[in-house]
């Protein structure tokens, strides 16, 4: 599903070069829940951005869902993301002037679906995350945990193969963090999604199949997560 071959990413910061990733190779099979872990500045978010088509490697090859992302221009990358990738961010990033249902509907505006069909799918996604009754509420009227579930419904609504989550529990309390991790696990278990998550949260390890550890831009360890060890159950 996701193949990174000797991927490097170098940023320019003034006259200096920052080596965010150093020849990282990684294979993530379909329908796995994977965590990218490591200290701040280890390059895990950069890696996530590259495999999600948000950023380009300075060197190396990125193949996701059968497409070589190195060959795609900006518009093609946007189309790739709309079709294949759902995003969940740390701070939810919902549009405050839209209701929960409208926020979930947002990615569907890029499809050819009619309004009724879009609404129907958005309502279904909200039902999956357990927020059907909160559809008409604006983000400001929802708790942090609820907002993150709306964000997960938004990531899910266009039925992408891959869901990437950047610190999805970083702004949540313990209870909501556990709920969010469980929900992401459900997406993998019940809907066959490939979920790639960047996290610092040690609780995440028991929900994922694989943990990749990065430090200073280098992938130095890959091991099974708690879910794999428990036969697929956290």
């Amino acid at each position, binding site marked *: 599903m996701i193949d990174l071959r000797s991927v490097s990413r170098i940023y320019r910061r003034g006259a200096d070069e920052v080596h965010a990733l150093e020849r990282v190779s990684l294979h993530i099979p379909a329908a796995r829940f994977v965590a990218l872990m490591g200290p701040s500045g280890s390059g895990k978010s950069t890696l996530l951005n590259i495999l999600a088509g*948000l950023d380009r490697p300075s060197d190396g090859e990125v193949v996701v869902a059968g497409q070589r992302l190195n060959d795609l221009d900006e518009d093609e990358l946007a189309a790739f993301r709309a079709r294949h990738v759902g995003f969940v961010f740390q701070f939810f*990033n919902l549009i405050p002037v839209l209701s929960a249902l409208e926020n979930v509907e947002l990615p569907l505006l890029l499809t050819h679906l009619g309004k009724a069909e879009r609404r129907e799918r958005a309502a279904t996604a909200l039902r999956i995350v357990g927020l059907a009754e909160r559809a008409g509420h604006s983000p400001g009227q929802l708790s942090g945990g609820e907002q993150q579930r709306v964000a997960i419904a938004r990531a899910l609504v266009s039925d992408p193969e891959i869901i990437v989550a950047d610190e999805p529990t970083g702004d949540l309390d313990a209870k909501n963090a556990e709920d969010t991790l469980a929900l992401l696990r459900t997406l993998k278990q019940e809907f066959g999604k490939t979920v790639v998550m960047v996290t610092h949260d040690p609780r995440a390890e028991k929900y994922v199949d694989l943990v990749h550890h990065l430090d200073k831009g280098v992938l130095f360890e890959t091991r099974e997560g708690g879910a794999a060890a428990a036969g697929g159950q956290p």
Partner: protein
Amino acid sequence: MIRFLPLIWRNLGRNKVRSSLTGAAIALAIALVCVLRTMPAGLDNFLSTLAKNTRISVHNEAGIVYPLPYSYLQKVRSVPGVVEATTWTWFGGAFEEEKGVTFPNFAVDAETIGAVYEDLGIAPEQLETFRRQRDATLVGRLTLQKYGWKIGDRITLKSTVFPVDLELQIVGEIPAAVDPRAWLQREYLSQALEAQGVSFDLVNMIWARVDDADRVNEVMRTIDELFRNSEAETASETEKSFFGNLFGNLQGFVTVILMVTGMVTLCIVFIAANTASMSIRERVGEIAVMKALGFRWRALFGMLVLEAALLATLAGAAGTVITLGLAQALKSVAGFSPQLGPLASFVVTNAMLVEGLFLACFIGIVSGLVPAFGASRRSVAATLREIF
């Protein structure tokens, strides 16, 4: 883009105070521009509606303040090609003495004025009453509206030229919307002056109507030739040329007005651009998220520009409504201004309002272009790194 309209609309309401204040600034600017535009348009309209190329003015070659002998009238009438001729003499009557002359008024020949000005659309029965009734006056619609006068009202004008006050009865209307002038009988003025022992045998100018536009130049040459080497040589010109020259000094005003209009537009572009960039800067995170979700930069660029254009166009619509009210108020306060002439007619046309709307839309588009381009082209990864 249509499916994004609800989102664009919601974004307009995101910061209601800021949107309202920007909208108010644009609305007032559009109203100001439209009202200013009525001024040069008033001059053009005056010349095109009231001035004809088949009517010629015969005045003293030295200038219109120098009179001509009244006896010239008969000679002008006898020139081949002249259908009819009449005289104008500046009465300079003030209705409210302390305000001076607030509308132009002339003593004219009641017998012939109708034939020379047949195109003005004055009702025949009103012209007939004017001809028969010695103290009659015909008043332009602009002045009737300004003072709230109606036919049958009696008014007194105190002349600033002659030592007489004349009591007059309004018997009819000069119906053009931009016409401020009033006519009274020359005979009435003559009798009033004779009663005070003042002889009255001069005119300021003679107006003649020519039967054929192709003969106008020939008729003007003939008239001027007729009075060559006389005590008062004449200079003839068409009515359009006469008023064009008369109001020529207003062209400077017009230039200033156009410059002010341009500056106001530029100012409001900067204000609107500042608002657009503030509004967009607050949303760079959201815009980055939308790009991450798969929105292409052109779609985001279009949405942001459309948002600025929509706000400006709605404000422009409000501005056109303000224009109508403001022009009406100015018209009732100012009416004819001796200093501004037809510039102060404040007649708003549909074309001006449509232009105002387009200008508002243009302001919105221009103000949104730069911030929208910057935000929509920004790298998603870089933005997410900076913001989150």
